[in-house]
């Protein structure tokens, strides 16, 4: 695959994502063949078809794609900044940190009748706060570690804090109102069922801003494949670049998690697939990563709602099924190469 020119490889990914979009939009309680979906998407469909496609199904499909893109980019950035192929938002405790923020928000702002006393639109902000708090904790712990800041240390702190965050979420759900607990649970395992166009626009706007920032910083991001001394010697303000890109990665994860829940391992898997399919040093690596992230989450969400229909599985359970073995494999491989 990597001997095709980069734009052709990206074109292939776009085509794959497009085909998957048509397929996924067609699936549901009333099945629609791809031809009718395409017609409805282009505005030539029957009126009923257009309502089903545009109002009922497309928001969910779009949200899955965009959230997948955000998570994948976040993972690629984290791997580049920490120079660690095992780094990912769910492994560094960022995903679960966002979950603490979001569930804590439901718990803190409900009244006796289980009604929210503030607008639900504040929930993303709570998720972002939680994500930054946990990312900050991992960074501080790794920084203070007298035993050095080896790549595996950071992962260990991340995994430990993720466990802590999960425990906090469980506690919040037990002490919190029952109705909220149910809502929090579907949200936690990651489910895109309740998607609206307004959610889609929030994620799309965040992604658009991030894309501009990534474009501006792309040569710096490429330079960070070097160790910090070498990168600094070539003229990169390393400390500043690391902090800024880490913040962007955390923001991207929080953005996705606040809208679709704690879908894990996408940030780990997508960059690795992009590395194999596109090459980590070819131009357009981040674009390839984003497209693959979109494909993964859309595929996971589609399978999740079809496999046991009319029951819906959480999409996050499926991505974990794919991602956890890869995580283990990377850990084993890392041990082998580092003696």
């Amino acid at each position: 695959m990597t001997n095709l020119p980069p734009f052709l490889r990206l074109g292939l990914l776009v085509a794959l994502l497009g085909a998957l979009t048509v397929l996924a939009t067609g699936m549901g309680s009333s099945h629609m063949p791809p031809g009718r979906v395409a017609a409805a998407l282009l505005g030539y469909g029957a009126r009923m078809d257009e309502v089903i496609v545009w109002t009922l199904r497309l928001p969910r499909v779009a949200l899955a794609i965009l959230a997948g893109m955000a998570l994948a980019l976040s993972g690629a950035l984290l791997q580049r900044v920490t120079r660690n192929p095992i780094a990912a938002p769910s492994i560094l405790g960022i995903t679960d940190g966002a979950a603490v923020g979001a569930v804590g928000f439901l718990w803190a702002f409900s009244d006796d009748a289980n009604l929210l006393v503030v607008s639900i639109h504040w929930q993303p902000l709570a998720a972002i706060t939680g994500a930054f708090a946990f990312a900050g904790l991992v960074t501080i712990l790794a920084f203070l570690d007298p035993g050095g800041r080896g790549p595996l240390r950071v992962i260990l702190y991340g995994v430990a804090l993720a466990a802590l965050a999960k425990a906090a979420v469980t506690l919040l759900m037990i002490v919190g109102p029952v109705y909220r607990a149910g809502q929090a649970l579907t949200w936690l395992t990651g489910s895109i069922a309740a998607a609206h166009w307004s959610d889609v626009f929030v994620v799309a706007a965040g992604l658009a801003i991030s894309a501009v920032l990534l474009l501006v910083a792309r040569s710096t991001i490429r330079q960070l494949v070097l160790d910090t001394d070498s990168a600094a010697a070539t003229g990169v303000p390393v400390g500043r670049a690391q902090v800024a890109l880490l913040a962007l990665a955390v923001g991207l994860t929080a953005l996705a998690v606040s809208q679709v829940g704690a879908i894990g391992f996408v940030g780990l898997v997508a960059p690795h697939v992009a590395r194999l399919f596109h090459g980590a040093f070819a131009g357009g690596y981040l674009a390839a990563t984003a497209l693959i992230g979109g494909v993964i989450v859309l595929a996971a969400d589609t399978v999740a709602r079809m496999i046991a229909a009319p029951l819906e599985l959480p999409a996050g359970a499926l991505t974990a099924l794919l991602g956890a073995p890869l995580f283990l494999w990377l850990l084993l491989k890392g041990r082998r190469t580092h003696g």
Partner: protein
Amino acid sequence: MADALARLRAVTARYDGVTALDLIDLDLPEGRITALCGPNGSGKSTALRVLRGLHQAEQGEVEVAGRPLRDWAPKDLAKAVAMLSQSPDAPPELTVQDLVRLGRFAHRKRFAGQSGEDHAACARAMRATEMTDLAARPIGRLSGGQLQRAWIAMTIAQDAPRIFLDEPTNHLDVAHAFEVLELVRRLNRTEGRSVVLVLHDLNMAMRYADHVVLFDKGRAVASGPTREVLNEPQITQVFGIRCRIVHVSGEDAPTLVTLPR
């Protein structure tokens, strides 16, 4: 002295509380090959890192090319001084060509891709290091000597008039060490670049350096033309060994024979 490459005045630097440089004063000449020599932990690598802004001095003044270090923007400093650190690291899948291109970072415009000038500089650097034939090879599949040359090519591609090399002959056998130092000499003699390098091997310093700084316990105990600094009593005192300097017939550079105490 206007022709100073870099200058340290009363500089102290520490690593995790251990003093590596102790109120050191140092002047490095422009246009020469300067070797920093001394026992392990004497502060020579730290001095180079402080000069390049890779390690923060705790106190004192650091000056590069007549300007205080803190007044340099990162990219401007990179264009003025290139440095290869002691154990550089990049992913093994990166090709030689991609690695060398990373040396051009400081010359890139924000939204521009590779310019013709970038291409030319990379090609020159790979030719100088004889890496042109290996351009497409991943660096994980290079031998030790080739890998070191690839990193040096990246450093040269930066097109800086001054190059710092921190133990560039580390991990290299004698033949490869000579190869690297011959390259250093060419860079200095034919391209007029100043080179400052940390060297462990005093005979290599004797043969290739114009100027030597001898470090001991965080201070520069001697600094000057190579043959004035590397003399028997000085080496005996700093390294705590006996030594003889002999002349091998047909060789211009004197040879240092080291002996146990």
